């Protein structure tokens, strides 16, 4: 498994709003800023579209960190979508903490369309913080937990020979 090898690299899934943070990431590109290649951006029209389920799902599917990027408070292209994001993220942060995830694995940043350098800074920072924490590897953990079930499954379904239905 790759996550256990020495060349493990953190995988960060990012959800960026179209108008500010996604555009800022474009600006970072146009300005040829270099940052860590560990991030995969999913574009949403507004950070308010971010359903907390997506964050949970990203972790469950193997993300080591999740980054949310939206417009600064008061700057939302859709007036106040980012306030809704802030409310959801505030509660989600607490819940993820209660579920045992280190706080560095989940981050909300307000990055305006002009802050290409902030994209670079935040991504690099987060990749390093997550790297220091090591792999989260939820799929691997699930597989480890479920290994215990192989034995009985085989025992009940395969060791006994099939008993045919009687015809009366």
């Amino acid at each position: 498994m790759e996550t256990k090898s020495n060349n493990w690299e953190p995988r960060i899934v990012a959800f960026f709003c179209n108008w500010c943070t996604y555009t800022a990431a474009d600006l970072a590109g146009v300005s040829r800023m270099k940052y860590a290649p560990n991030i995969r951006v999913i574009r949403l029209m507004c950070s308010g579209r971010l359903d907390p389920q997506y964050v949970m799902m990203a972790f469950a599917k193997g993300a080591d960190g999740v980054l949310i990027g939206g417009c600064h408070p008061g700057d939302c292209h859709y007036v106040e979508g980012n306030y809704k994001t802030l409310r959801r993220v505030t509660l989600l942060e607490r819940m993820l903490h209660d579920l045992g995830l280190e706080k560095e694995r989940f981050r909300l940043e307000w990055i305006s369309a002009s802050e290409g350098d902030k994209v670079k800074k935040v991504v690099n920072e987060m990749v390093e913080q997550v790297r220091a924490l090591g792999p989260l590897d939820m799929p691997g953990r699930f597989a480890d937990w479920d290994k215990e079930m192989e034995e009985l499954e085989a025992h009940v379904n395969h060791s006994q020979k099939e008993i045919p239905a009687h015809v009366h």
Partner: protein
Amino acid sequence: MNEPTKTQPRIGVYICHCGTNIAGVVDCKAVAETAAQYPNVVVSRDYKYMCSDPGQALIQQDIKEHKLDRIVVSSCSPLLHEHTFRGACEKGGLNPYCFQMVNIREHDSWVHEKGAAATDKAKDLTRAAVSRVAHHKPLETKTTPIHPDVMIVGGGIAGIQAALTLANAGQHVYLVEREPTIGGYMAKFDKTFPTLDCAACILTPKMSAVGAHPNITLWTYSEVAKVDGFVGNYKVVVKRKPRYIIEDLCVGCNECVTACVFKEGKFEDEFNMGLSKRKPVYMPFPQATPPIVLIDPETCINVKTGKCKKTCVEACGDRQAIDFTQKAEMKEVQVGTIILATGFQPFDAKRIPQYGYGIYPNVYTSLEIERLVNASGPTEGHVVLRDGKTKPKSVGIVHCVGSRDNKTHRWCSRVCCMYSMKLAHLIKHHTDAEVFNFYIDIRAPGKGYEEFYEKLQEEGVHFIRGRVAEVTDWQMSKEEEGKLVIRVEDTLAGFVRRIPVDMVVLAVGLEPHADSQDVRRQFNISCSTEGWFLERHPKLAPVNTFTDGIFIAGACQGPKDIPDTVAQAGAAAAEALSLIKAGSIELEPNTAFVVAEECSGCKTCIPMCPYTAISRDDVKKVAVINEALCKGCGTCVAACPSGAIKQNLFDDDEITSEIEAILAK
């Protein structure tokens, strides 16, 4: 049309090299080969320039040949070319929304080093798009009509130029200006660089053309109070402040000004940068447009106390143009497009106390000097010291005050080198003084600009390279007695110099208006970190903003000189005109809708919408989304506790399949 089937999508994947922009970092061939293995992929290719005609033709041909029903293009940012490729899909006979774009340039090759990591990223992102696009549904393109009227905010040279261009093309324009007159900063200038033609001679005809144009509604002394709506259908409320003068009745005879109980001007004249005094009733300057007076409520005795002989009313006589009962008036208009030309404000020189502005009387800002050298200015063009009579024998012009300075503003204000040289020429011409320019670099990159710099050197104007440390009056020698001393490191000569002068001119930079953040929020556009309005693309869409139908022109977008401002104003007018002439604009169909059978009527979504697009059907007891009002942010979709709200192009199955596939290994 190849309608996508539910059972087995047929996907085409195209990896763009973008010359070497992508291919120089990402192994495009490898990405295409890997993508060929992804589920449902029928065709996977890499190509040099996907956005080129042959690139687009490739997609169209494959759609027909391989019966493709979904397309993925991995190239640049969707903000740049999504529209292009959607068009290619449509031309190929496919619904344009059965398309997904992957950004492997701005988000990958341009920000990462060449190597496996960048290629892996391109593969992951492409895999996610392939997985996502399988869930895309064909959608109908929606359009909205464009109201033909235009609002222009700001009546400086940018606003004037844009207004005239549009009005001459037959469009109705509302020009809103905060000050009592249009003209902006240009109206204060004597000459313009590098041609030294008279600013008033070229500006005032345009100002009066605006005032007289049948297609222009000019509202000065007015501010935008509220903006609602969207491209094509903006509803703007303008607050017209009371000027206590009935505009239609005033003929600008100035008799009320003469008759005012104040025999002499007593209050700082804004137009002359406080270098002269005005009365409470005044006309900003002789060529003001509209050419009418106003009464300043802050200084007029009658407005403040109601106890005045009102000699002005008497002087106006039968015309009865003065109306002290005037109140602020709200005007609401419908426009389809808006051009913001709100300009800049000069840097406040007091922020750099070591330059002595406000401490030493004979330290001036460049705008004050513009008024001093102006024949219609407070001294009728005589350059004299603050005492009102002494001609300076030596003048120092300090460049980059509030520019190229980490402590104040990092940007170059672009105009100061040139206007400083213009002022140096004019001061020398008016006074024959020794003029010293203290500069970091001379930036003269315009037509005839470098030649102007040479001309100045020939005229004997001194240029000393070095940022000035301080302007002070402490003395080291007799010859400094009574003078201002400019301390500077002369970086060409390599030593610190003390240059005594009679007058110091601070070449203040340009900065965004103090309220630029409020203004851009009002119009829902973005700002750069510094506060300049942000263009949609620095090269390809310099007057567009991220909000459709709102354009920017002039120095509100960043410091620029008059030629650039006028060019940009023309461009903004042309962009607005192009929308108007098209009659309508395509909207993203990414609206949300409620699946009524799954809605429990819990009302969670209703307050989520900032556009009041969601209401409750009280008979069926379910939520209903008005598609015309929905702008597609998806906040209600995320909030819906039963997943009963869906969103076109950003639905749960589309996003979750993207998450899963982006992490698949």
